[in-house]
């Protein structure tokens, strides 16, 4: 699987060369936009890392995990990822901050680290997408959008645990 990233990049560059577009100029242009994105998310990351640090150091995260752990054990679900799973639908940057804290506490290649990774890769910031897209056209009655979207988040959570168990034993 490690080969997929270079192949992906290679195919794109090759296609650009075949279509005779100024490949490197375009690369520079796009990368410049990348800087803009980075600057846009920087304050969010700092603010949320602050909140996450408080959540963990104060013992609040442990309290939440402690409350959820009997249920989590029953379901074979790594309780360490509970804060991340709860924040995932609300904030992308916030859940990235929590993903990192799972990596630091349990290791990337631990059961919790892998489940957290799969969950991060298979879910989106549900509330943000709903608010932004419906907000952009002034739709107020969103009918069954929310149940469908939240069911997807829950499915991603369950599927993360099952797939990690299946692939990594």
């Amino acid at each position, binding site marked *: *699987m490690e080969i997929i990233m270079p192949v992906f990049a290679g195919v794109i560059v090759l296609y650009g060369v075949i279509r005779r577009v100024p490949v490197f100029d*375009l690369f520079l242009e*796009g990368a410049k936009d990348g800087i803009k994105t980075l600057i846009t998310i*920087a304050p969010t*990351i700092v603010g949320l890392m602050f909140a996450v640090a408080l959540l963990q150091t104060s013992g609040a995260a442990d309290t939440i995990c402690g409350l959820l752990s009997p249920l989590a054990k029953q379901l074979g679900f790594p309780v360490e990822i509970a804060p991340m799973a709860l924040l995932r639908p609300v904030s992308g940057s916030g859940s990235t901050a929590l993903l990192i804290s799972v*990596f630091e506490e349990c290791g990337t290649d631990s059961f919790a680290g892998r489940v957290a*990774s799969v969950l991060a890769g298979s879910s989106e910031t549900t509330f943000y997408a709903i608010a932004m897209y419906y907000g952009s056209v002034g*739709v107020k009655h969103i009918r*069954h959008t929310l149940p469908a979207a939240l069911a997807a988040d829950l499915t991603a959570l369950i599927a993360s645990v099952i797939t990690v168990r299946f692939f990594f034993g």
Partner: protein
Amino acid sequence: MLNYLWSALVILSILCSFFTGNSPQLSEAIIDSSAQAVELLLTMAGVMLLWSGIMRIAQESGLTEAFAKMLSPLLRLLFPKIKDKPKALGSISMNLTANLLGLGNTATPLGIQAMKELDALNGGSQTASNEMVVFVVMNTASLQLMPTMLGTLRQRYGSAAPFEILVPVWISSACALTVALMIALGGNHQRVLKRGGRWKS
């Protein structure tokens, strides 16, 4: 939303620290957190610039459009009522392609454009049309094929095989998307039945 959540996290955590006796450690944690945030940003910076650059090549060379064309038979299935509305369908397919390729920043404006076209077809109603529900729900599921940022973060934090999670990610995403679409389309179907089979959009 984040205004409430963020303030709740901060205030409740500080209150909680009085009960757990961890208050003295908080100031150190606060200082560390900002340093960690900058470290995380630096880790993300390289990969974000690199892939923004590479994906720009994909966009300008027409690769994204070629990909979007491949999607259109699938879209006709998911949006049967608008299969003769090429403009709306085109925006939807470009948005989904951008999501598949992990072009978050490109996906958003394309998605808003798609919503505007769906809104026009819906007569500017305040109630979401069937197509809007399906479209927004697809955007709340993760479609990204190549989670480059996730791989980078895994590598940076010590993974021996950062992309070993790729197949599980695809399977998990596919499950989530399937459930989302089933509920979205199922709910749409119910509405059609309630209205005696007539639902204009």
